[in-house]
């Protein structure tokens, strides 16, 4: 009994001693505490971080951030921990606590203070805890999110203090959720826990599901049905959102297929030419983007952010010109001979691939991704990545532009006439050779635009086109030739079907099933979904 009481007293005193530093006014972080970061292995580093956090000195925050970013180094000569920034051939050193300059050092004079994933997570939590009351909203938001992720019961008091001072609704939301998670984890009255379950279930996303699943094992028996109801509710919601997410993925895949296939639909539709070099036009568009990027970086570095925008007309003009040259030099001689055209364009695709390989090298070329194309945003329960969204927008714009060209310009009128009845169009005075060259140029130009889009999601290599030529033909065959709407519907339906199959059967089997379905479809409707009708079209 006495030992029990003694133990209890010791525990009480110990917990007070731990609580007091938090409640105490700021104590100073000392250079000795900072230098402790550079000594020992990962467990010692963790203890040093905890000691620094316990001082509640706000100067510790940038030090912890520097540690997380890999900017903290130990000076080999005296073991002092310093901030090092690249300067010239070496490093410029600064004191982490007072920012005073400490001269320069060469790479061999300093050793990086290493961290691993475990430490990285703990640093994020620590930084979050220390910046929860910051005046900067963005800093508070990321702090609240990391406190939520860690859900450490010791941060409850801090969280409640921050909640009381918070006015921003989004931040209040995150903090209330964090509070609810912690309440569920710790010993709290039943009513508080019940309210917490409702808060978490109301959040309805995947993280809430994780919390509730973990809580199911630890809550008292009376609350288990509540937790289960919450889990079931979230699961149903997530299923619906999952379907919508697959639809979004399918649309983005469909938009890529559309971009790649629409040029082929035009050339195939107008001229009946099976162009096996179409994939290489896409590849040339991607390389044009790379070249534009290199030129801008070399001569006009201020425009680097715009290099992708500038590549769009550049790639279109370049591949369009290449297309016209191909038509005039090779295709023109092979009209009415589909097998020879097939063979000739296939040979041309090999020549183009090897030419690019010899000129640029066989390895992939890096194309920089602009900032507005990285990351994702949430729309309800959907996560949409920016690069895919912009590609969908781009595909719609290209499609609309093509419709405009085909329906509102004289050239478009002539193209449509030649598609429907070449002989009659020729008799009406349309220069069919000129229309053919322009059509091929237009189709290749659009393929170039597809190449520009693909640099953001795929590797720029000489065999980039090989991955898209089969898909392009699938779309054109399925959607029907001569009508752009057929290509649009065909591309989107193949994309959506593919993405709905993929989670269940995997990528490889999904592709196979799509191919088999298209083959079966072609048996019933050989001309595709939206085939052109008319007497003369049969030729």
């Amino acid at each position, binding site marked *: 009994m006495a030992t029990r009481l003694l133990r209890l007293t010791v525990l009480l005193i110990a917990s007070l001693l731990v609580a007091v530093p938090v409640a105490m006014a700021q104590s100073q972080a000392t250079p000795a505490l900072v230098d402790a970061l550079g000594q020992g292995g990962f467990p010692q580093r963790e203890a040093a971080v905890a000691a620094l956090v316990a001082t509640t000195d706000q100067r510790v925050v940038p030090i912890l951030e520097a540690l997380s970013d890999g900017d903290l180094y130990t000076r080999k000569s005296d073991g002092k921990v310093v901030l090092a920034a690249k300067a010239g051939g070496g490093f410029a050193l600064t004191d982490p606590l007072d920012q005073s300059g400490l001269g320069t050092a060469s790479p061999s004079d300093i050793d990086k203070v*290493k961290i691993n*994933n475990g430490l990285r997570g703990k640093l994020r939590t620590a930084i979050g805890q220390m910046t929860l009351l910051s005046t900067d909203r963005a800093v508070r938001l990321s702090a609240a999110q990391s406190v939520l992720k860690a859900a450490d019961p010791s941060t409850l008091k801090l969280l409640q203090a921050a909640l009381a001072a918070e006015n921003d609704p989004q931040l209040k939301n995150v903090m209330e959720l964090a509070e609810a998670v912690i309440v569920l984890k710790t010993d709290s009255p039943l009513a508080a826990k019940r309210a917490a379950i409702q808060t978490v279930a109301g959040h309805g996303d995947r993280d809430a599901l*994780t919390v509730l*699943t*973990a809580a199911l094992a630890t809550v008292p028996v009376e609350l288990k049905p509540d937790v289960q109801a919450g889990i079931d509710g979230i699961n149903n919601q997530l299923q619906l959102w999952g379907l919508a997410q697959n639809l979004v993925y399918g649309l983005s895949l469909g938009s890529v297929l559309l971009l790649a296939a629409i040029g082929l639909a035009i050339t195939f539709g107008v001229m009946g030419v099976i162009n096996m070099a179409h994939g290489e036009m896409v590849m040339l568009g991607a390389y044009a983007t790379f070249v534009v990027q290199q030129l801008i970086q070399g001569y006009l570095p201020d425009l680097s952010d715009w290099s992708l925008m500038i590549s769009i007309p550049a790639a279109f003009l370049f591949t369009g010109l290449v297309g016209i040259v191909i038509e005039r030099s090779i295709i023109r001689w092979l009209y009415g001979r589909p097998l020879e055209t097939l063979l000739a364009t296939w040979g041309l695709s090999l020549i183009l691939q090897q030419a690019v390989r010899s000129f640029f090298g066989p390895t992939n070329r890096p194309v920089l991704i602009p900032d507005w194309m990285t990351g*994702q945003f949430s729309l309800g329960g959907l996560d949409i990545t920016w690069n895919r969204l912009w590609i969908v927008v781009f595909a719609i714009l290209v499609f609309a532009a093509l419709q405009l060209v085909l329906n509102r310009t004289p050239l478009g009128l002539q193209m449509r006439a030649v598609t429907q009845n070449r002989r009659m169009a020729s008799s009406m005075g349309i220069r069919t050779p000129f229309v053919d060259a322009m059509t091929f140029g237009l189709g290749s130009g659009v393929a170039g635009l597809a190449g520009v889009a693909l640099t953001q999601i795929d*590797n720029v*290599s000489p065999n980039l086109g090989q991955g898209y030529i089969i898909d392009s033909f699938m779309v054109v065959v399925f959607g029907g030739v001569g009508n752009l709407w057929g290509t649009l519907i065909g591309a989107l339906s193949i994309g959506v079907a593919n993405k709905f199959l993929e989670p269940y059967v995997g*990528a*490889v089997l999904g592709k196979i099933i799509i191919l088999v379905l298209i083959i079966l479809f072609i048996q019933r409707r050989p001309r595709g979904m939206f085939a052109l009708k008319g007497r003369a079209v049969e030729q």
Partner: protein
Amino acid sequence: MTVHRVVTGLTLGAMMTMGAIAPVLAADDTIKVGVLHSLSGTMAISETTLKDTMLYLIDEQNKKGGLLGKKLEPVVVDPASDWPTFAEKARELISVDKVAAVFGCWTSSSRKSVLPVFKELNSILFYPVQYEGEESEKNVIYTGAAPNQQAIPAVDYLMSDDGGAVKRWVLEGTDYVYPRTTNKILEQYLLDKGVSKDDILINYTPFGFADWQTEVAKVKEFGSAGKKTAVVSTINGDANVPFYKELANQGVKAEDIPVVAFSVGEEELSGMDTTNLVGHLAAWNYFESVDTPENKTFIDGWHAFIKNDKRTTNDPMEAAYLGFNLWVKAVEKAGTTDTDAVLKAIVGLSVPNLTGGTATVLPNHHLTKPVLIGEVQADGQFDVVWKTPDVVPGDAWSDVLPEDKGIEADWTDPLTGCGHMDTATKTCTTAPSP
């Protein structure tokens, strides 16, 4: 007249003899070394640098005086990431170019494709890449990691507290023999360690796969069941680039769901912005960031040879370095480049590796190698966060699989050795097909 005839006849005769001998003499002047790596196609991203490494190593050896008094001559061919072409090119190197040994292959598909050629024509292949094991051939020296020198220690690290105490596993691979066999071994290992089948998700994608949206979303979904989840990636080739980009875009951070890759090194990361990938892991036997004098000499010499300070070094390059040095040592010991003599000499030879240890050739034609786990840094390099205290001997027939219990390989005598020996019954059996 007669003298004239005699002189003409003698001169002609001398010339013909010289003509017959000359090619033989010229052939004896150099030792040809075959380099069989893809310089185009989906694997070019990984294999091109190995071709350059072989040229560097041969150049260094020639500076030291060559081998057996003769200069080494590299013969480079491009099998273009096409597995049947690997077999064709291997045959060309051995029968037409008459190379003494071949350094090459990366994917297990390419290695399996060339095996019959090496067996038939009795030449040696030095294979520098980590692979799935389940093989031990007389004509192949495996200088890369077997599963017990890479995959199993990586999983052990992730299961430990240091690695995050991972409880749920996604095995993500490219669809061919190496990931399929490695995942078979890893799945059995995880089940033996008490991981439930529901906590393991296995998924395959084709070579060059670029649309990772669904796969990464699946990883996120699998990882939100409340248990710490990790991805074990056996994705090969340039499909890795869009994979990592999608991971970064969808916000999969290494502290939350770490990805440990077995086929991604400094070379594959060199074209990418790795700021969003910091903390993701790779398991190898060597990293460029390892600070030893041998590594510094190798890197400095490499930069001077390739005339580019930014070219990275990686594990397969170190394996090529080990394989080449072992071959040179074996040829010097045997006094000839004849295949069987070299194979007899090479077992038991040791050379220093670049991380401060030694690589010894074991009777099963594998090496002893240390295991290093590294985390990706923002500059595309790796920071070592864990390593084995000593080198680990390579095990060709994984002890994890029940069908491999008691199976060993022994090529100490190349002519009477056995690649798949049942140690219980002491009989040489044939391996079951993968």
